[in-house]
C-alpha cells in the first residue's frame, strides 16, 4: 500500500509536470514576493503636483518653498495657466494642482481670507487622500505663522493604525493580496491535479498503481499539494509580516490554522468543479470566474458592510473573507483571540463541507471514467513508438477517424 502511495505521488508530481510546479510553487510564491517588492517604498510620497502662481509675492514664495520641502509632495510643474495644469492632470503627469490667486498676500494681510483653490484629479483614491492631507497641513502651517505664530494649537491629534503602526502599505494591502494569491492557487492546483488524470486518460493507470484504493489515490493526489501550499503560504505570510509589528507565537499558530483551513476549502471547491464539469479547461475557467476577483469581495479594500446584501452573502461563502478576518483580528494582539476562534470554527465547518462534497464528486467522476475506460480495449504501445500522427496530413486523419 505504502509503496503504491509513494509510487503514485512520484508519478503525479514528478513526471515532467512543468505547469503543475509553476502553479504550485513558482507563481504563488513569485507573485507574492513580487507584490511585496512593488510596495517596497512602504508609504506614498513624491505625489506629483503643479502650481499656478497668479500672485507673485513673498507669501506665494513661502508657500511654494513649503510645498517643495514636503516629502509627500513633489512640485513637478509651474503652470502658466489653468488649462496647462488641467491637461497635465488629464495626461496623468500631475495628481493635483494648487492655484495661488491674484493678490493672495495683500488680501491675506487685510484678513479677507483669500481662498486657495486646489484641483485634484480624484481618480486615484490613495494618492489623492495623501496629497490632500499634506497640502492642507502645509498651507495651514504657513497661514498660522502669518498672524498667530505665538499661539499653539490647543488640541492636536495623532492617528495610530493598530497593528500597523507606520501605516505601511505592505501591511494594509500585501497581506491580503498574498492570501488572495494562495486562495486562487489552492483552487487552481486542486483542479489541475484532479483533472489531469481525466485529460490524459490515466485514471485506470493510477487506480492500478494504488492497488484499487480510492482513499490512497486521494491521499497521493491531494495531501502533498496541501502541505506544499500551506508551507509556502506560511512562509510568504511571515515574510510579509516582517514589516509590521512582531508576530507572537499565538498569532502565528492561529493564522496558520486558518490558512490551512482556507486551503482545504479551496481544495474541496476545486474538486467539486472538476467533479461537476469533468473537463480541465472548463473547471479552470470556473475557478477563474469565482476565485479571480475574490479579493474584491473579501472586504480588505472596500468593507463588506458597505456592499449590497447579495454580495455580502457571496463574500461570506468565500474562505478568503474569513482568513482575512482572522489575519486582521490577530494584528490587534491577544484581544483578537476570541474572535479568531469563532472564525476558525466556522472555517472548519466550511472545510469539512467542501472537502466532503469535493471528494464525493471527484471520486464519482473518476469511477465513471474508470468504468468507461474498462470498456475500451487495451492497446499496448512499444516504448520507442513514434509520436502521435501529425494532424496536418488529411489522409492520415481520415484513416485515424475510420
Amino acid at each position, binding site marked *: 500500500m505504502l509503496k503504491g502511495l509513494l509510487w503514485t505521488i512520484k508519478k503525479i508530481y514528478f513526471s*515532467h509536470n512543468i505547469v503543475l510546479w509553476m502553479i504550485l510553487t513558482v507563481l504563488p510564491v513569485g507573485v507574492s514576493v513580487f507584490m511585496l517588492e512593488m510596495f517596497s517604498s512602504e508609504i506614498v510620497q513624491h*505625489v506629483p503636483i503643479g502650481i499656478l502662481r497668479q500672485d507673485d509675492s513673498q507669501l506665494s514664495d513661502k508657500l511654494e518653498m513649503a510645498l517643495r520641502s514636503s516629502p509627500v509632495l513633489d512640485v513637478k510643474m509651474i503652470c502658466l495657466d489653468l488649462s496647462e495644469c488641467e491637461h497635465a492632470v488629464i495626461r*496623468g503627469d500631475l495628481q493635483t494642482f494648487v492655484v495661488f490667486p491674484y493678490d493672495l498676500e495683500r488680501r491675506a494681510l487685510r484678513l479677507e481670507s483669500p481662498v486657495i483653490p486646489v484641483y485634484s484629479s480624484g481618480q486615484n483614491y490613495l494618492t*489623492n487622500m495623501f496629497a490632500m492631507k499634506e497640502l492642507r497641513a502645509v498651507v495651514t502651517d504657513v497661514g498660522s505663522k*502669518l498672524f498667530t505664530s505665538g499661539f499653539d494649537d490647543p*488640541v492636536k491629534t495623532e492617528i495610530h493604525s493598530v497593528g500597523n503602526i507606520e501605516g505601511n502599505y505592505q501591511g494594509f494591502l500585501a497581506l491580503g493580496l498574498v492570501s488572495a494569491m494562495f486562495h486562487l492557487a489552492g483552487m487552481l492546483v486542486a483542479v489541475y491535479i484532479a483533472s489531469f488524470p481525466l485529460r490524459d486518460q490515466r485514471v485506470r493507470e493510477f487506480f492500478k498503481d494504488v492497488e484499487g484504493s480510492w482513499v490512497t489515490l486521494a491521499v497521493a493526489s491531494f495531501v502533498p499539494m496541501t502541505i506544499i501550499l500551506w508551507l509556502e503560504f506560511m512562509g510568504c505570510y511571515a515574510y510579509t509580516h516582517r514589516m509590521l509589528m512582531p508576530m507572537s507565537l499565538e498569532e502565528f499558530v492561529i493564522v496558520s490554522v486558518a490558512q490551512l483551513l482556507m486551503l482545504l476549502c479551496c481544495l474541496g471547491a476545486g474538486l467539486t468543479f472538476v467533479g461537476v464539469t469533468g*473537463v480541465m479547461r472548463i473547471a479552470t475557467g470556473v475557478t477563474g470566474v469565482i476565485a479571480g476577483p475574490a479579493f*474584491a469581495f473579501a472586504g480588505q479594500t472596500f468593507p463588506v458592510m458597505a456592499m449590497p446584501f447579495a454580495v455580502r452573502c457571496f463574500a461570506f461563502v468565500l474562505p478568503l473573507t474569513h482568513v482575512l478576518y482572522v489575519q486582521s*483580528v490577530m494584528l490587534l494582539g491577544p484581544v483578537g483571540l476570541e474572535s479568531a476562534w469563532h472564525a476558525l470554527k466556522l472555517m472548519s465547518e466550511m472545510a469539512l463541507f467542501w472537502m466532503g462534497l469535493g471528494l464525493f464528486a471527484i471520486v464519482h467522476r473518476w469511477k465513471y471514467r474508470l468504468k468507461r475506460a474498462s470498456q475500451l480495449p487495451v492497446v499496448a504501445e512499444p516504448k520507442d513508438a513514434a509520436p502521435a500522427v501529425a494532424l496536418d496530413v488529411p489522409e492520415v486523419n481520415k484513416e485515424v477517424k475510420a
Partner: protein
Amino acid sequence: MIHRLLNVTLTEWKLFVTDPAAVLLLVVAGILYAFYYPTPYMNQTVTRIPAAIVDLDHSAKSRELTRMASATQQIELKSVYNDILEAEQAMAREEIFGFMVVPENMEKDMLSKKPVTLNIFTHGAYVMLHGSIGTAFSTCALTLGAVSKVKAIALSKKVPSAKAMAMRDPMPLSIQTMFNNTGSYSNYVVPSVLVVILQQSLVIGICIMGGARGHRRFRKDSRYSSVENEDMPYRYFGRALAYFLHYCCFILFYHFVIYNIFDFPRRGELLPMMVFAIVFLTSVINFGMCLSQVFLRRESSMQLFLNLSIPILFLANFSWPTYLMPKWMVWLSYILPSTFAVPAWLSIEQMGADIYDVAPKLYLLALQSVFYLILALILTHLRDKSSFKTGDM
C-alpha cells in the same frame, strides 16, 4: 483576397462560439466580469463606519466632542466607553473599526492653555476605513481646538471673533475634485479593471483557441481544413480580425451599457476612443498570438495567466503609483499592453482627454503592437512547420 481573409475570420469566429472553454473566456467572462466587479461597490462610498469614543475626561468638552463626532457623515458612533480595553475588544469583534481617546483632564488642560493630544486608533488592516475614521475624528477634534484658539486670539489681540477666525486661518483651502466628484470607489477601481479584463480574457482566449497549426483542434475537422491550410498571412490576419471585431463589440458594450448601468462618467470622444480601440486591441491580439505559439496545451495559458491578473493590474499605475515601484518592475511592465492602456483609457473615458493628451501612451501601444506583430509572425512561421505534439506546457 478579402474573401479569403473574411473566410478565415468567419471560421475563427464560428469556432470560438462553439467551443465551451472559449465561449467561457471570450464571451461569458467579458460580460459576466463587467457586472460582477462593480457590484460590491454599488454603494460607491463608505459612510457611517462604526466607531466609538473612549471618554476618560467626562467633561462638558468631551461631551461636545462626542456630539460633534456623532454628527459626522463618515462615522456612526456606536458607543462611548470608559475603558480602552473595552474599545479594543469591540474592535477585535469588528463591532467598531476605530476609536478616539479623550484623555483625562482634557477640559482642565485646555482651560489652563496646556496643549492636549487626542489619540485616534484605527484598525490596521483596512486602509480605507483608516483614512475615513482618522479624517472624521481629526476634524471634530481640530474644530474643538479651533474654537478655543479663536477665543484666545480674540481675547489677546482684542479683535472681533470674525477677525480672530481670519487670523487663525488666513488662507482657507477649497478642494475641487475634477473627475471623481463623489469620491466613488467604483469610479476609481472598475474602469481600470475593465481594461485588464479585456486584455486577460482576450489573451487567454486566443491561447485557448490554440496557436500552432498542429494544435488547432478544428484541423481535425475536415470542414475547416481548407481554411487552416490557407497562406500564413491570411490565416494570421483573418484570425486577428475575428478577435478585433469581437472585442470592438465589448468596448462598445462597456461604453454604452456598463458605464450607463453603473453610472460611471462617460466623457470619451469618438476619435480618441476609436484610436484607442485600434491600437489597444491590435497590441493585445498580437501579444496573445505570440503567447499562443508557446503553449502545447490550450488550458496552460489559463492556469498561468490567472495567477498574473493581480500584478498586471497593479503594474498599470492602478492604486500604487508607478514612480514608487522599483525601476526593474517599471521596465518589466512595458511588455504588457495594459501598462499604457489603463492610463490611456482613464484619460479618455473618465477625464475626456483629446487625442493629443493621450498620444504619448497610444504611440507606445502602437509600437508594442508592431513589435508583437513581427514576433508573432516569425513564431507562427516557425511553428507552422512543427508537428502535433503535446507536453505539459
